[in-house]
């Protein structure tokens, strides 16, 4: 029997965590608790997706960010001793999880990509060395904690008519209110093209020599019916493409039928965002590029030679 807590930040990530949670709990029995914001919006849905209990976090004063819940969650976890706590590997999740783990003096598997029971223990896999290797860890302390890479686990099939207990946690005790205040919030621009819905995604990487060469990638993408995305350096350092097209950790995660990385080396920060693709393909001139270790099909060759040939082949 295991008690599993899920911290709910976004709808998508919560569904995926519930998918993983149910898989884990079904093996050993136990219950799933979802911790969510005070408005409890969508909690009926969480019941259908497998939550046995909903915990509403106390309302936060204006200007406080979600991270302000850390002391409350930590206090509750210290008292109730859940066996497992899962958070999404979103930016917030990746800040909150280690801080919670530190307060609970426990181990945390960051950005986990696979989970399994082994004997009575949970083992998790994570990607290390920029995508070149997989590290498998087991936990020597409780609770077991992990942040889970987006699009790694599928949402469970909802069961109508399930219900979940509801309770609330007490507000922040005096002296535990953090000093961090939000003074401004800007929504990122939404683009007409939505990478997350695309069936085919072509990602441009550092292998591109100049901005103008994106035209080549665009032409190729249009022929395979795909949208163009990119790795972080292209959007955040070179500013060749808008931030919204940046794929990976702290960018968007995609789950298309086909992902093609063009001049993408395959760093973990990027590949985490495409792990869910049905087929991963790559074009890269370096045979040892980590992307080939994570791809189904790959052309080993210069993209400036390969793309024109691909374009010709596709036009036929």
């Amino acid at each position: 029997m295991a008690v599993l807590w899920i911290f709910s930040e976004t709808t998508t990530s919560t569904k995926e965590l519930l998918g993983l949670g149910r898989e884990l709990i079904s093996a050993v029995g136990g219950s799933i608790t979802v911790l969510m914001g005070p408005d409890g919006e969508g909690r009926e849905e969480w019941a259908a997706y497998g939550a046995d209990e909903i915990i509403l976090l106390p309302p936060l004063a204006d200007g406080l960010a979600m991270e302000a819940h850390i002391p409350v969650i930590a206090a509750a976890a210290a008292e109730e001793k859940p066996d497992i706590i899962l958070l999404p590997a979103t930016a917030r999740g990746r800040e909150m999880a280690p801080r919670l783990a530190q307060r609970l003096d426990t181990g945390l598997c960051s950005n986990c990509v696979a989970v399994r029971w082994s004997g009575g223990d949970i083992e998790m896999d994570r990607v290390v060395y920029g995508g070149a290797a997989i590290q498998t860890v087991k936990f020597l302390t409780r609770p077991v904690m992990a942040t889970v890479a987006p699009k790694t686990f599928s949402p469970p099939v909802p069961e109508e008519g399930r219900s979940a207990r509801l309770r609330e946690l007490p507000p922040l005790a005096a002296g535990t209110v953090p000093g961090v205040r939000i003074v401004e919030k800007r929504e990122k621009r939404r683009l007409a093209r939505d990478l997350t819905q695309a069936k085919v995604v072509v990602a441009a990487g550092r292998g591109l020599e100049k901005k103008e060469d994106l035209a080549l990638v665009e032409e190729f993408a249009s022929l395979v019916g795909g949208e163009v995305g990119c790795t972080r350096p292209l959007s955040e350092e070179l500013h060749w493409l808008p931030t919204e097209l940046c794929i990976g950790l702290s960018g968007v995660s995609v789950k298309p039928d086909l992902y093609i990385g063009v001049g993408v080396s395959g760093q973990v920060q990027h590949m985490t965002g495409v792990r869910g693709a049905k087929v991963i393909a790559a074009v890269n001139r370096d045979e040892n590029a980590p992307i080939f270790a994570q791809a189904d099909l790959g052309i080993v060759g210069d993209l400036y030679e390969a793309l024109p040939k691909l374009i010709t082949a596709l036009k036929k």
Partner: protein
Amino acid sequence: MDFKLTEEQELIKKNMREFCEKYVDPIAAEIDENSRHPAEVFQKLAEGDWMGIPIPAQYGGSGADYLTHICAVEELARSCASTGFTVSIHVGIASMLILLFGNEEQKKTFLVPLAKGEKLGAFVLTEPGAGTDVMAATTTAVLDGDHYVINGTKTFTSNGPTGDTYLVFAWTDKAAGRKGMSAFIVPRGTPGMTAGNHFAKMGLRSSQTSEMLFKDCRVPKANLLGKEGNGLAMAMTGFDHGRTGIAAQAVGIIQAALEESVRYAKERVQFGQPIARHQAIAWMIADMATDLNAARFLTYHAAWLKDQGQPFSKEASMAKLFASEKAMHHTIKAVQIQGGYGYCKGAKVERLMRDAKITEIYEGTSEAQRMVISGNVLR
């Protein structure tokens, strides 16, 4: 025995690699094509103290050892042989000679701006009729009051069109033979000194080479470097330092040839497998890697001897001879490995092959190196 670079040498070498990836690689093909001196890169090199590595801090340099400078030249040449060479001759010959033989005043006036990279140095020795046979030179410097008056024609002067501070060699007493030549520091703009024809070269194209013409060029007596009559000996000392730099340049070229070959051989598929799996190609690469190690050790050893204060003339010649001939040999192989692609403009190996040839020629041809080496061995 200790085959390890110091922590500082290793870090500096890595930083130079990063510098090259950021500033040199992106323009290397273009400056070769256009035969352009990349002033913007030299500005950055000056900012990073790369233009005077072995010159003591009190004279505007970094105060590191000669081996550190050699490592920097190697990394530069790995990206662009021309840029590596320009730094080599600027530091290894022009600056080093003023450091070794200049008086305090000359060091303050001329060495400091060279070491800081504000000025570019040039070495003006070769003449149309005097290549390896230095004694056949005809340029003269005649004392006239407080000035020497220089007349003559020099050729193949590297940094000729772009230099600021020229070390000019001329006879002050032709009859005295080997003890009759002197060296002068001549700043750019001195009346009577002009850069003549620029040479359009096969390789090393972004390095600027020209004739230097001297017509009643009056140089103050204060600009005589060292003693009158010591010119030839100083030139030879300059060559010891310079040749170690050319060896490093050749090592950089071999390194680049190896990298290009390995990359291509793994990518290029023929007969159903990457050509790296074909023994004919694999063996070429084995030889390249082996000679690269040997050339590098010879070069570092020459620089190390210099830093130990030991004679290194023979070792500098050996390093230069071996590294330059291996650079030529292996860049030809690198083009061979890439076949038709390697023969076309835009392939790095094509540029490497053209650049490699000069390393067997300047600062003493391979034949001249064999003269020095055999002279030492048969003594």
